[in-house]
């Protein structure tokens, strides 16, 4: 958690936590694992009433946030969700909202997303390729003032639940983004397998999908900046969520070390283990520090925001999985059973590590930003 929350933010954190504790405990997550949808739309609507899709939207478009620092408030929610491996399209929908607000227009769509009536997801990855939002293979062919989309997107979060996709596609003059209705002619959604039990993904096939001019998001000129904005929001929320997950796992693993006795003494009394806990505590604090700094930089539109989200992803992406794996080790055999909750967390951070750029991809991005 950010150590310097305002009083309003602290209160907001408490109410968000309470809502999540009541509405989405881990027992519920396990139930939803058996459910094809992965999350309940009605539940998401109630989350939207708490402002989960409103915080990146200006007040004149029906949005608003607790502290006036919408992304930082949203990161608080993401972190609390990480502590409970909560389902739901928080990141997916807000990344799209961030893009729409950045590009301008689409007021009605934004309104539907803010109210929770609609769910959206950014369709950016493509089969067989890593993180390369600036070089999409999906094509957008101009037809009058409309476009025709062809190609395949994959690793689309909440694809089965999304009403709208924000599709990044290639036009003759560069990448451009389009709002595609999930029920439009030529759109086929095929569910994918996913490591996370409740965060679902899918493949979105686009075959001659006709897109009216009104569904174009921004322009070729503004698209690179809009994509960057979407990425920044996605990585901030993702790192906050992973940090929350690690924080919770570390918390119950420390407790375990105090409670579990071997050779007549608690695990917490063995120096070999104490030192590993000290390392993990250090890395966890660093995860909090860099996630928080990235959120603040993006919130404030700081010139180093692009670099700092990659710094956060480079660090949190790697350490989150390392810390949780070590917590599994410290639990002993129970740590690798289905019954123990550890794997729910390990699944979530492993998925987060891989998406919206791996730590390795973000490290290369840092080298690009430094113009080496």
């Amino acid at each position, binding site marked *: 958690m950010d*150590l*310097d929350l305002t009083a309003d933010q602290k209160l907001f954190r408490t109410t968000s936590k309470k809502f999540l504790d009541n509405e989405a405990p881990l027992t519920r997550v396990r139930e939803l694992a058996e459910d094809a949808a992965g999350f309940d739309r009605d539940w998401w609507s109630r989350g939207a009433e708490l402002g989960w899709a409103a915080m990146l939207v200006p007040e004149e478009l029906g949005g608003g946030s607790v502290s006036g620092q919408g992304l930082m408030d949203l990161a608080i929610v993401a972190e609390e969700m990480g502590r409970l491996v909560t389902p739901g399209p928080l990141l997916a929908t807000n990344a799209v909202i961030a893009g729409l607000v950045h590009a301008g227009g689409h007021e009605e769509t934004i309104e539907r997303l803010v109210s929770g009536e609609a769910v959206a997801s950014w369709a950016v990855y493509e089969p067989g390729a890593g993180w390369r939002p600036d070089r999409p293979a999906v094509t957008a062919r101009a037809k009058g003032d409309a476009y025709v989309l062809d190609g395949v997107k994959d690793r689309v979060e909440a694809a089965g639940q999304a009403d709208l996709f924000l599709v990044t596609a290639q036009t003759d003059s560069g990448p451009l983004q389009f709002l595609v209705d999930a029920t439009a002619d030529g759109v086929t959604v095929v569910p994918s397998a996913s490591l996370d039990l409740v965060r679902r993904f899918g493949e979105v096939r686009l075959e001659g999908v006709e897109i009216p001019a009104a569904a174009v998001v921004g322009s070729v000129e503004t698209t690179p900046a809009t994509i960057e904005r979407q990425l920044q929001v996605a990585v901030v929320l993702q790192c906050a969520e992973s940090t929350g997950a690690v924080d919770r796992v570390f918390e119950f693993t*420390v407790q375990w*070390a*105090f409670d579990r006795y071997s050779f007549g*003494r*608690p695990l*917490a*009394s063995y*120096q070999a283990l*104490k*030192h590993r*806990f*000290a*390392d993990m*505590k*250090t890395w966890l*604090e*660093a995860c*909090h*520090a*860099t996630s*928080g*700094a990235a959120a603040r930089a993006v919130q404030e539109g700081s010139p180093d925001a692009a*670099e*700092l989200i*990659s*710094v956060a992803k*480079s*660090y949190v992406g790697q350490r989150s999985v390392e810390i949780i794996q070590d917590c599994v080790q410290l639990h002993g055999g129970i740590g690798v059973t289905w019954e123990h909750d550890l794997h729910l967390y390990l699944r979530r951070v492993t998925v987060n590590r891989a998406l919206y750029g791996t*730590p*390795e991809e*973000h*490290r*290369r*991005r*840092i*080298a*690009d930003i*430094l113009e*080496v």
Partner: protein
Amino acid sequence: MTDQLDEMEDVESFRLRARAWLKENMPKLEDKPPLRIGEDDDVEWLRARELQKMLYAGGFAGICFPKEYGGLGLTPAHQRAFNEESEGYEMPLLLNIPTFSICAPTILDMGSEQQKRERISAAIRGDEVLVQFLSEPRGGSDLAGVITRATRDGDMWVINGAKTWSTSAYAADYGLLLARTDWDAPKHRGLTMFLVKVNQPGVTLRRIKMVNGSTEFCEEFFDNVMVPADAVVGEVNNGWAVASRQLFYERTAVGGGSPYVSGVGRPNLVTSNFDLVDLVRKTGTAEDPRVRELLGEAVAHQRVQDQLIDRVTGGITRGHLPDSASSIIRLFHAETDWKNADVGLQIAGSAAVTGVVGEDGPLRYGESYLTRQSTSLGGGSTEMARNIISERVLGMPREFAADRDVPFSQVPQGRTS
């Protein structure tokens, strides 16, 4: 100025005033090569004192120290603003550790009124340099086990023993010396801290040569050194409380979080500054994706360190974290340096081990690599940091100690058979 109203100048106005003053008065940092390791550095020390005197004359010395002891009585935010503005100017960086970031704040917390008035203000004026006489040849981590002896003799104390790892003691005027004054008390309860003049009869200094050729560290021998009773810092036999403050400030300083320093960066004495971007260019490896990845990883780690320092020092200041959390910064700092050393070696490849004679090339990354572990040893080993984090931050049970609650005279000091 608003001084007559005794209102604190706001940070922005202070920043602007500092910017103008620096431009007008301080020499720009020249792109001079760092001293060769082991080279005579007396000139650097004289220069540091000179620069400090300039800061003092301009009213920018001792920003966070109280006015009554020669400082400005301002906040860490003022200090940060000044340090940001000071980039590109020559600063008395040599005085940052330990004089300003460790010794002076300890005296401020624990010293007598006279010690504060005399030593702190002399340091701020650029007249005196302070040093720590803590570690002994018998062991570094078990600091409270010191066996340097101070014996009362009328109004005086007589000191006998040896100290080591004192950074730049050869350039110092006064040292904070931890000595045992009660051998019947348990380890921590028989210690006293003294402020000892370095240049006086009975004190012998010897420089220690390190693996990379550096001679920055010293060891000192004390033979019947006489110090007056008013040289005691804090109370007699309560020296561990003073040493603990030093250790806290040391961890903060080593981690880069001290509010008492002037200027940022390392002094010119140290050649282990890593410029990995420069290394990538020099080695012509910029096209290699693996190299770009390594570089990004190391840069990210460095950034995270700065962010962690902000979080932890802020958390300690505002009471969200215990003082002992400064060990988190200390441990992370070592990890950052390891990362830089390792990545430097990887990127430099064979150029780290052999190169053109006399050229300051990638070979220095090989040389730095040889002293990679000094970052996890100096200022308290990372093993001790891990003990502190697990025991005092996480509250885990303390390690068994054979010397706890035992009169120190009965504690074994080596093999007995």
